[in-house]
């Protein structure tokens, strides 16, 4: 059962103070910083208790290998995308913010569609996400940030329940970026996200009408009223962060499309193998893994 304790600080008049008290090293790192992409620590502090509640109490996320993310310096996190709403990114952000010994923010590259919904794009930017363009990614890496990329893109989040945990081919752009900027890649396998919203069917014609990337039919959407239609199932999650991979290719190799595609596929298969293993080891959807397997 969820304990709700993490929601105590939600809606406080001064969320920054609560964040400073609870997570001083994260607060010190980013307070007063001017961010050209719109990151606002106050907005982050307002929403952090809600996502921490999801992370610790609701989904009870197990995070393995958080120490593989460096305390400083740039890196690109690459993972499998899932869950209709991009909650997987938020869970990894929470892990990095609360479970790492040197908390940092992760700048996820997000699709343009978010900016077509009034207020949503601004909120995503204020919580640390950045519009996915090559120039933005290069700027972030030049500033030694952690950049999160889901190379499956929107196709990954829109997978149906039958296609869960079957990864869609990675776009090789992230490998190109990693070689061009000499940045290590950190693969991340996430189990749980594909089952929080069992997605039975995508009504493409309605999606086209509403200009949405997909229009899912789930047990609660579009049947129940707002906000019940967004309630996810309390599935037990596991985030497995692999060791960083230094590709070691010279910058000129970034233009070699064949090489980039080959590396992207290898990484995709690595994550898929890990997902298959984690799913085999899982005892139950809601209780997760045996403690000795963690």
């Amino acid at each position, binding site marked *: 059962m969820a304990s709700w304790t993490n929601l105590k600080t939600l809606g406080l008049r001064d969320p920054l103070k609560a964040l400073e008290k609870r997570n001083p090293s994260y607060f010190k790192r980013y307070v007063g910083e001017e961010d050209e992409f719109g990151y606002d620590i106050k907005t982050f502090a307002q929403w952090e208790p809600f996502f921490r509640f999801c992370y610790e109490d609701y989904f009870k996320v197990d995070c393995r290998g958080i120490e593989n993310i460096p305390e400083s310096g740039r890196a690109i996190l690459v993972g499998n995308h899932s869950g209709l709403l991009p909650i997987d990114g938020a869970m990894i952000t929470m892990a990095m913010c609360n479970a790492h010994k040197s908390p940092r923010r992760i700048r996820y590259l997000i699709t343009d569609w978010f900016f077509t919904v009034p207020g949503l794009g601004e909120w995503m930017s204020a919580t640390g996400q950045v519009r996915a363009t090559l120039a933005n990614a290069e700027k972030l890496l030049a500033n030694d940030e952690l950049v999160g990329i889901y190379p499956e893109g929107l196709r990954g989040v829109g997978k149906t329940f039958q296609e869960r945990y079957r990864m869609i081919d990675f776009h090789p752009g992230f490998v190109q970026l990693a070689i061009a900027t000499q940045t290590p890649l950190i693969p991340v396998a996430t189990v749980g996200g594909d089952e929080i919203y069992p997605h039975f069917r995508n009504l493409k014609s309605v999606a086209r009408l*509403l200009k949405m990337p997909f229009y899912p039919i789930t047990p609660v959407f579009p049947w129940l009223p707002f906000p019940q239609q967004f309630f996810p199932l309390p599935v037990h999650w596991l985030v497995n962060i692999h060791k960083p991979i230094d590709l070691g290719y010279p910058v000129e190799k970034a233009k070699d499309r064949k090489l980039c595609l080959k590396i992207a596929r290898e990484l995709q298969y690595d994550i898929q193998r890990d997902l298959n293993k984690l799913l085999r080891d899982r005892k139950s959807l809601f209780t997760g893994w045996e403690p000795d397997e963690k």
Partner: protein
Amino acid sequence: MQDSDTTTNDEVVENEQDNEESGESNRDKFGVFAKKILQKLVLFVSFGPGVLGVLWLLGRILKR
């Protein structure tokens, strides 16, 4: 004869074409309007009361 016939016919055809075009543009305008209304309705139902909520509301109205 042929010329005048042709001219007359052309005028008639042009008028008919104009009428058709204005009819088509009206139809297009109506289509766009209907699409917008449908879009708003689907958005409202999906992200508002939900399908079950709308059915419940309709049920209440019809019961009265």
